[in-house]
């Protein structure tokens, strides 16, 4: 069961996802314990494995800190669904093998606390609480290839073999 944590906001930035005061470590579990701290101090207490974050435009804007992706991944979040993503965050997620979903409608059709199920293969978010299906365009092939290889470094190593 995946619960949606919905933030009806644009420009949720890397300082809100993982404040710089915690960048003196790259330990994923430690970063995860501060995930979204300056946006929603209670997030780490309510998030469960496989849950999803839903937001508006430009999610992850700001710093190049991959720590933002690690904090979210470390908090066992399954995916982030946003209308759009900031460029470096998007790239970092792909490079880490972490799937992101771009959807224009999700923010309108999912309420905080709704139960969702994601069909990555067919590009469908099923909002089981509202009984609504929301389709999305799967990531482009080159990104899928990197994600399926388990991230950029595995992808490179594999290509060189």
């Amino acid at each position: 069961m995946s619960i949606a944590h919905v933030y009806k906001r644009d420009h949720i930035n890397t300082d809100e996802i993982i404040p710089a005061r915690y960048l003196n470590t790259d330990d994923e579990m430690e970063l995860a314990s501060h995930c979204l701290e300056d946006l929603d101090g209670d997030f780490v207490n309510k998030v469960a494995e496989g849950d999803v974050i839903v937001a508006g435009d430009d999610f992850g804007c700001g710093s190049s800190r991959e720590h933002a992706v690690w904090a979210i991944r470390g908090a066992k979040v399954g995916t982030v669904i946003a209308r759009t993503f900031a460029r470096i965050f998007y790239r970092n997620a792909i490079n880490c093998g972490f799937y992101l979903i771009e959807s224009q409608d999700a923010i309108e059709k999912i309420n905080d606390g709704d139960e969702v199920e994601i069909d990555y293969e067919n590009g469908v978010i099923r909002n089981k609480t509202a009984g609504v299906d929301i389709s999305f365009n799967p990531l482009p092939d080159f990104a899928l290839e990197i994600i399926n290889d388990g991230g950029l470094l595995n992808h490179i190593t594999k290509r060189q073999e």
Partner: protein
Amino acid sequence: MGMTITEKILAKAAGAEKVVPGQLIDARIDVVMCHDVTTPPAISMLEEKGIDRVFDRERIVVTPDHFQPAKDIKSAELHKRLDAWARRHDIKHYYKLGRAGVCHALLPEQGHIRPGEVIVGGDSHTCTYGAFGAFSTGIGSTDAAAAIATGQLWFKVPASMKFVLNGSLSPGVYSKDVVLAVIARIGVDGALYRAMEFVGPALAEMSMEARMTITNMAIEAGAKSGIIGFDDVTKEYLDEHLKDKTDYIVYESDSDAEYSAIEEFDCSAIEPMVALPHLPSGGVPVSECAGKEMDQAYIGSCTNGRIEDLRIAAGILKGKEVAIRTIVVPATPEIWKQAKDEGLFDVFYDAGCVISAPTCGACLGGFMGILASGEKCISTTNRNFVGRMGDPKSEVYLASPATAAASAVEGKIADCRKYM
């Protein structure tokens, strides 16, 4: 159809005759910039994957800056990891404490930035180097690891937006005000995924330092890169700063190159700007927010911590006393020494400011000037996100060094023009 300067640089890096926006390329990297926050994790990744190598020990530039001198035990550990790696691979350009500085001020100053090259760095403000007619962009740690080991990275060629800076800046108005006006107009994702190309007569009048302030903040509009073409001002800077590799290729955009948008600005009409919390796009003319009480002024960072910025601030602070905590952070040791030699330290000391060692410091809420709950800071830095410089309930107001200095004197947001 012609190509933009960005497309030409990327075509060369990809070994192609031509590239078009949206095209995926494997680009050869000329320089990789490494600092203390994002590189240690990259090193660990390379070690874990068993590919602990560097593509070229002379094309990697290392400088701790974010938490240097080490602010706590954990950051000391980051520095230790960075140091051990740089020594193990005999990195040629490794700037240790005493020579290390805020990366985006240090690399151009030490002659590591050349036109026509592709530069990446594990820091979002790597876009700064575009001021030299180079393609430069910020990357995360995994990309940094790949770039360090292979000297190659995948890119999607960005579409370009053209920003025409017409007119001439009025006294008291600086490049920081221009870039805040640009971002106020297009928004923090107004240039998402794109290259921001700046042209125009107002730009031609700017020094390289002033230009770097503009390209530095391209990321604050969501851009992949910012770029400015080569001219005599660029050449003069490079002649002075380039050391070993003095050759470079100059590219310029074709007259029939394609832009996804063209934005014109009359710089003569721009006033000193202040970006209100909590987005860099919150810029308003100083007249709309003057009088707002501040608790701290911060003059430094990769955006405005260069010698020209310190001279501007000192020009206003000379013979005056600051009314609030004021922290001056020369961005590199060379700038620090220059400021000292020029007597700027005396001005700052007499005014009641504190002068820091070169560091990113409080710009990103690291240390050396963190804000308490409810405090407000007028800052020459680049971001005013929630919690950026300290407590989530603190506030950051972005402005030029002149506006920050004038505001320091009055203890509230002030129009620097009355001190000219």
